[in-house]
């Protein structure tokens, strides 16, 4: 909707102070988009894809060529610019798409799962570019992701579950919101242990992947007491600061479900996070 591909069903939204319903073309000019699925013309070369983009965004020829050289340099594809996109690997295509999304100097860059299905090395690379852009070009980045560690860098995170916004705040605020530390516990009988914990400490223990997880305020003090009091034998125990994954679990009550991913326009329940310009 924010990218003007879908018509709003209600309400109002502005991107770069343009209304998404009334100022479609102005909004489209202010944003860069990197889709989850490739959207390149595979039968054109990298250079031609970028030229095409530069042309339909109305960049004058001289500036266009300069800018194309710049973004190709940025994503390290200068040497392959005359090759057909068909011959590119998944990571190269994604890099080219990011380059294309940046070509017209957008104010807001939308990234829909920019690193989905990429190997760790490429993923790392892409994040380096994105972070660099954020600081160098002062770009606002709006991204959706499956990976909680990616959301960690964001200025603000919105969590959407079943199409409803259930939380929106900075990563730290969100973590504080779930109250203290996380204790992960492996016992001989998780069900019994969970009941015991609920009775004795009035704390809810959630089971996941065969482990119990509970949130308490100061975990370091709570842990010894817990082990001493529990009648069920504890096989292993660990303590950590809450991660966004815990926040997500706490808020939605489950792990991110494996859902069939079809496209940008499909309503999905997942973390949508917003990166704000680092001020």
């Amino acid at each position, binding site marked *: 909707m924010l990218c003007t591909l879908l018509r709003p069903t209600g309400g109002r939204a502005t991107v770069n102070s343009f209304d998404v319903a009334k100022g479609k073309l102005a909004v489209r000019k202010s944003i860069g988009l990197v889709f989850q699925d490739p959207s390149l013309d595979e039968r054109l070369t990298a250079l031609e894809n970028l030229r095409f983009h530069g042309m*339909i965004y109305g960049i004058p020829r001289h500036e266009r060529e300069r800018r194309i050289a710049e973004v190709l340099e940025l994503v390290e594809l200068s040497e392959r610019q005359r090759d057909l996109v068909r011959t590119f690997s998944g990571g190269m295509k994604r890099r080219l798409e990011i380059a294309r999304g940046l070509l017209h100097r957008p104010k807001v860059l939308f990234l829909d799962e920019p690193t989905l299905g990429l190997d760790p090395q490429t993923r790392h690379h892409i994040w380096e570019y994105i972070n660099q852009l954020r600081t160098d070009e002062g770009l606002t980045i709006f991204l959706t992701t499956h990976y909680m560690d990616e959301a960690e860098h964001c200025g603000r995170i919105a969590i959407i579950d079943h199409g409803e916004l259930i939380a929106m705040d900075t990563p730290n605020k969100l973590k504080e919101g779930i109250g203290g530390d996380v204790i992960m516990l492996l016992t001989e009988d998780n069900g019994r242990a969970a009941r015991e914990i609920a009775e004795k400490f009035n704390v809810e223990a959630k089971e996941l992947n065969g482990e119990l997880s509970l949130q308490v305020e100061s975990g370091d003090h709570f842990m010894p007491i817990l082990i001493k009091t529990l009648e069920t034998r504890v096989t292993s125990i660990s303590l950590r600061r809450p991660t966004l994954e815990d926040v997500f679990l706490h808020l939605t009550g489950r792990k991110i479900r494996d859902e069939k991913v079809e496209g940008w326009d499909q309503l999905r329940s997942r973390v949508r996070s917003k990166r704000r310009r680092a001020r």
Partner: protein
Amino acid sequence: MRLALIGIYTLWLRDVTRFVRDKPRIISSSVQPLLWLFVLGLGLSTAFVRGGGGSDYLRFIYPGIISMSILFTSIFSGVSIIWDREFGFLKEVLVAPIPRWSVAVGRALGGSTVAVMQGTIILLFAPVVGLKFTALQLIFAFLIMFMIAFSMTSFGILIAARMHTHEGFQVVVNFVLLPMFFLSGAMFPTQKGLPAWMHALVDIDPLSYGVDALRQVLVGSWVHPVWLDIAVVACFGAVALAIGVWYFERTE
């Protein structure tokens, strides 16, 4: 308006770039019409001679084969929007700051240019068929070829707007392309001797008028006056494009 012109030009350029690059495709799409023309045409002309017809069957079908070449290339070009949709490229175009209608018009022009180029390849074989054209004839021929191409590409775009996977493609070939071609009078005369139902179908086939106009210019025989031919082809193209654009504007 400037944005729209940019959009039209860019989309046009993309089609032409892709066409010129793909030499194998140019050759393979030229082979089929040439087979129709020389193998089937020469073969059937012996039958026509025996049946008392002239020996100029080859000349009779020549404009028809050019039209066929244009028809196939145009419809495929128009329908190729489906591939753009499946490969995601359409999204890139739809979020660009250009009006939607310019996307459809740009593709229609690009597809027609490519189709006219394909038709021109067949036109180069005129000496083999024993035809010579004046410059004026050629100018008119190109105009008519372009009109056929433009209206058929628009028709292809219209089909693509209503079709969402390429699986329906064979259906289009069987239910649209081949009937349009067979009923157009490209391969046989349609003035008399046909059953009434077939005659009616010939009359509603827009390609009949395109073939008729081209035949009039290149060979000098016709069924309808040329102005009627041109009017029908132009109207068909305009209506197809208008509906195609309308669907396109509503695409989300």
